[in-house]
């Protein structure tokens, strides 16, 4: 086993362990912080896969923004003080079955397929290509995203602003 493989195993175990802990922890705030750890593990996996930009974007977006938002929202809600939060309801068995089935189907599909798209290897300077794609081929979606974000911002103010 080579060094990257050992690293991959270690990081993978930490990431999955944290992910499991997210859904089993009885303290909702611990879940949120463990979620951040899971995101970080995924970012490290991206590094191991030689995609540093994805890793940085993962940290920036998922830890810097989404995790912080989740934690902030939890802290502002009333139930923070209740450490024994029950994470299950009466439908947990049903959702477990659905989740396992979905995972099974997707895992089977992933393993069975040759994935022709994966053969288009990323260049070393992927970041330059990414930038050019944003203002070249994908200029229209890029611009549409800005309008979508504007609408979301306006909507957030309408829905959440104090009167």
């Amino acid at each position, binding site marked *: 086993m080579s060094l990257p493989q050992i690293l991959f195993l270690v990081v993978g175990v930490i990431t999955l362990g944290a992910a499991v802990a997210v859904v089993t922890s009885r303290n909702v705030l611990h879940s949120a912080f463990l979620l951040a750890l899971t995101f970080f593990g995924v970012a490290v996996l991206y590094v191991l896969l030689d995609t540093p930009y994805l890793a940085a974007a993962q940290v920036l977006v998922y830890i810097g923004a989404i995790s912080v938002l989740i934690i902030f929202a939890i802290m502002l809600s009333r139930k923070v003080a209740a450490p024994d939060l029950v994470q299950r309801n009466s439908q947990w068995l049903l959702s477990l079955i659905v989740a396992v089935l979905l995972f099974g189907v997707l895992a089977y599909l992933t393993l069975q397929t040759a*994935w*022709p798209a994966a053969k288009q290897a990323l260049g070393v300077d992927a970041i330059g290509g990414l930038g050019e794609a944003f203002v070249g081929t*994908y*200029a229209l979606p890029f611009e549409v995203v800005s309008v979508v974000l504007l609408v979301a911002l*306006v909507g957030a103010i*309408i829905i959440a602003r104090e009167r």
Partner: protein
Amino acid sequence: MNLIGLLSPELILLATGLLVLILDMAFHGKEGRREWLPFVAIAGLIVFLIAASFLWGTHTSLLSDMMAVDSFALFFKVVAGLSTLLVILASWDYFQGKTPYEGEFYGLLVLAALAITLAAASTDLIMVYLSMEFLSIGSYILVGYLREDPKSNEGAIKYFLYGAVASGIMLYGMSLVYGVTGTTNLAQIAQVFAAGKLTGDMLWLMLPALIMLLAGFGFKIALVPFHQWSPDAYEGAPTPVTAFLSVGPKAAGFAILMRVFLAAFPAFQLDWAAVLAAISMITMTLGNVVALKQTNIKRMLAYSSIAHAGYILIGFASVALDSPSLFNGVNGVLLYLLGYLFSNVGVFVAVIAFENATGSNQIPDYAGLIKRSPWLAGTLFVLLLSLTGIPATAGFLGKFFVFAAAINVQFYVLALVGIVNAAIAAFYYLNVARYMFFVPSQEESHVAIAPALAVALGIATFATLLIGLYPQPFIEFANQSVRLLGVF
């Protein structure tokens, strides 16, 4: 024509939406001036429709094949523009005192119309996803617009949770498609399948992928397994928004469904046509049967619009673009959408007028409406007849075309189920008419209609009758609009 010219309808909508938002901010604290905002929005929409009409007959693709300019997209531009126009007229007095953000409403509505036009023109999975998300986010906000109303909140949160899951699943399906074909462009996906280089395993993968895509599209259209959000969202939303939701996003969903399936997956038509036929039958039956029991007219219309989605889907399930027959399925869908647009928005305008005057949405409260406001009762009756599908109305023309398409491809069961359902639907539509005309009421006061609503109601009723009585130009319009870029 250059890029700016080809994009001009979209750019005009964007400019109008932003202008309304900015003017609303500039007019802050100057109450009198804010009443001009709907005029700005309407003017923008009219300019948009005019700009769009210049693109008639143009067939090209733009910006690295991200979107198409074709008759099909043009048709949905017209649908988006007209429905938004009518909804703006219908919401003229509605928000007075209900929300301090009246100006933003018109801005968001215009931007939602932009989302519909983008959705109908998208020829790349990334654009398809983005425009659907654009439309969804706008719709969530519009549904939850009345923040003090718990029902509006409930509807918005249900819509949002459903939408988030549906678009997640759709995205997963898109990633499978990309993984197999290595491209997100619809035409290129079709080429990969046509080249026949893919082996059995990977073709088999397309079944779950298509079902996942269908979940996302079906959510927007409110097809049956993905419809649970719609009654609550329709009931809770401000009524003009309900009117918009029942037409705009539905049309966008159909546009995307047809373009993606026709442009990218013609190789799998046998599979998806069968699935869509089954979904269509379930959808209309469930929608109609549940609508029978409703007493709230908005909820009834919600289920009825589910049923209509089922009828419309008949047309697409029986698509036969290369058939020599007049009824190729897609033109039926377009005709149906056009008629449904006017009839359904018209009915909602009548509901809004009644709600503004009485504050009620219960069907029994419509008793004796013929005496309280003969005009309202009369127009509502005509529009309900159109929704039922009585000849000489727009609704009949659409139903005729989709049923004929089903018969054309020998989907006799599908046509039969459709016809039976139309008969069931007549019960609850005419039930409203029964209350209006034959049940006496204690209330005798006159129901006043605001001028803007009267205009909207007039346009809707006139268009419904015009399409029903003089259908030739509209049939021609729909036939021309079947021309999808790269398909037909």
